[in-house]
């Protein structure tokens, strides 16, 4: 399918007795950002290596831009760019020389390559270091040079392993904006391996949560959230009415699942956003002052922590239930009743 950038079915890879990836099936449309999430050893880097034909799978199939990485590895790698976890720059060469070597391996002519390198180093604020050896560069500077290297040939698919680790806040903001622009404006597909959920939250259209090689969840955060929780959370900050009276009034409305009172604030579980608007109208009609009414959207971070909570709540890794297409793949619900996720966000 032309608008699918990446598709895997039953992708499996082991290293001896260790399962690095087990029966993973995902599908990422072109121009989207997929956040690959999970703790160290989850299988994120193995996934990237498999998708870019550096490792061979033990089982399963995959297509990246319609290309089979096993059958046409070099053809595939012409269209992909990779930022590895370690910047992977040769300390003995200058920033320009590091990039020029890669440009030449990619078949770029020297002069256009030099121009492109100049532009990219400028874009990442590395012009001053262009002709200095990498040996003296900081972690953040190396990361920026390596990012420039991954973009040299304007790849269709970009694999970014921890792109913002080691960067200062301003550089993080720039890199996040750059990734967003690559996907949203230039139609590039980005696979983002990260431990920074805030960054993933901001960028990702889809998320895949891996744990010890098993796919714990895959899909759009909103779709996953819909499967994880019943209803959406909302809050009402009130005055001029007894909270218990207000709670009873709201509880009587259709679409309200649950109401809890905390001082002058009502916390609700509702089936859809419009229910909150109805509640506000009814409360105002009853003479209440409504200081704030906030429907809250479940974020990628909420989904991540809920999936983790459910997994650890079961005490063992649930069976991987891979999903294909755009259907979300979510873990089974936990034994205790659903509660609002109040864990801190990364």
């Amino acid at each position, binding site marked *: 399918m032309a608008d699918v950038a990446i598709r895997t079915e039953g992708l499996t890879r082991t290293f001896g007795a260790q399962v690095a990836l087990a029966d993973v099936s995902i599908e990422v449309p072109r121009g989207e950002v997929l956040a690959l999430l999970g703790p160290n050893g989850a299988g994120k880097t193995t996934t990237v290596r498999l998708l870019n034909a550096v490792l061979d799978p033990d089982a399963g199939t995959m297509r990246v831009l319609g290309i089979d990485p096993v059958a046409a590895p070099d053809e595939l790698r012409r269209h992909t760019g990779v930022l590895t976890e370690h910047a992977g720059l040769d300390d*003995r060469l200058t920033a320009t020389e590091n990039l020029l070597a890669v440009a030449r391996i990619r078949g770029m002519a020297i002069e256009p390559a030099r121009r492109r390198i100049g532009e990219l180093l400028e874009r990442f604020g590395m012009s001053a270091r262009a002709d200095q050896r990498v040996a003296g560069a900081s972690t953040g500077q190396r990361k920026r040079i390596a990012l420039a290297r991954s973009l040299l040939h304007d790849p269709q698919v970009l694999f970014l392993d921890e792109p913002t680790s080691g960067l200062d806040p301003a550089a993080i903001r720039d890199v996040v904006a750059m990734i967003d622009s690559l996907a949203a404006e230039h139609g590039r597909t980005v696979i983002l391996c990260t431990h920074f959920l805030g960054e993933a939250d901001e960028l990702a259209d889809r998320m895949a949560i891996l744990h010890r090689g098993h796919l714990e969840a895959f899909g759009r955060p909103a779709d996953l959230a819909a499967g994880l929780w019943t209803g959406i959370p909302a809050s009402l900050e009130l005055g001029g009415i007894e909270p218990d009276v207000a709670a009873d009034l709201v509880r009587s409305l259709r679409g309200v699942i649950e109401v809890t009172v905390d001082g002058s604030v009502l916390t609700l579980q509702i089936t859809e956003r419009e229910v909150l608007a109805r509640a506000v109208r009814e409360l105002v009609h009853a003479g209440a002052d409504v200081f704030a009414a906030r429907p809250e959207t479940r974020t990628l971070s909420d989904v991540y922590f809920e999936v983790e909570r459910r997994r650890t709540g079961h005490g063992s890794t649930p069976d991987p239930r891979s999903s294909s297409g755009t259907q979300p793949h979510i873990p089974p619900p936990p034994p205790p009743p659903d509660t609002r996720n109040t864990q801190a966000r990364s």
Partner: protein
Amino acid sequence: MSTATDWGAVRAVVWKDITAVKRSKAVVLPMLLLPAVMLLGLPVVIGILAAGSGPMNVESLLNGLPSNLAEPIVSLPERQQAVVLVLGYLIAPLFLIIPLMVSAVLAADAFAGEKERRTIETLLHLPISNRDLYLAKLLSAFLPAVAVSWVGFACYLVVGNASAWPVMHRLFLPTWLWTAVILWLSPAVAAFGLGIMVRVSARARTSQEANQLGGTVILPLVLAIVAQTSVLLLAELWVTLVIGAIVWSVAIALNVRGARRFARNTLATKL
């Protein structure tokens, strides 16, 4: 797997590796030390000894040589016999150590060094085939090894002729034997050593591990074989050419097999 070699990509890897190696004292110094001692120090010492002492008795040595080799030397004045024998013939087989050593040092750095510096993964993610990557790494070690041998030989010719001038009063180097050893046999020995060392490097985790494995187990075996066969070099020119052809054949076979068996997947599994 594509059949055509992407020479642009191969050249780029070779350029990167050689540029980096030139800036690495830890690699360059040991690589140049032995050639400097052998190619420059030895002829100077021999020249000084020959000029400073009286005629050296090399009759017993000459008696041990094949007659076709000994006869032209015996016909020389007595003071010149030792100089021609040592500088013109006996040192020649020792020169085979130079390309072997230089290529071994560079080959150890080829893959294991990249792993150590954590640059190998970047290389594996680039559009260069397994075979071309192996070829590039082979050439990154082979070309400098041959260059060091040839440049060193040119220096040896100058120093050897100059230091022996007070005794010889003429240019007596290079001999045909030297020419054959340097231009034909020496690159073959380098390629032979590389056929082993590049594969060792691909399996080792660090260049130190590759050097240890190569330097303590494999290269001594290769050197022993070279030492055993080097006596043959003193016989006839054609023998040198034939030995060269045999070493080339083995080296090519080793490297073709190495290139066929080299796989990213294996290398990446150990990252």
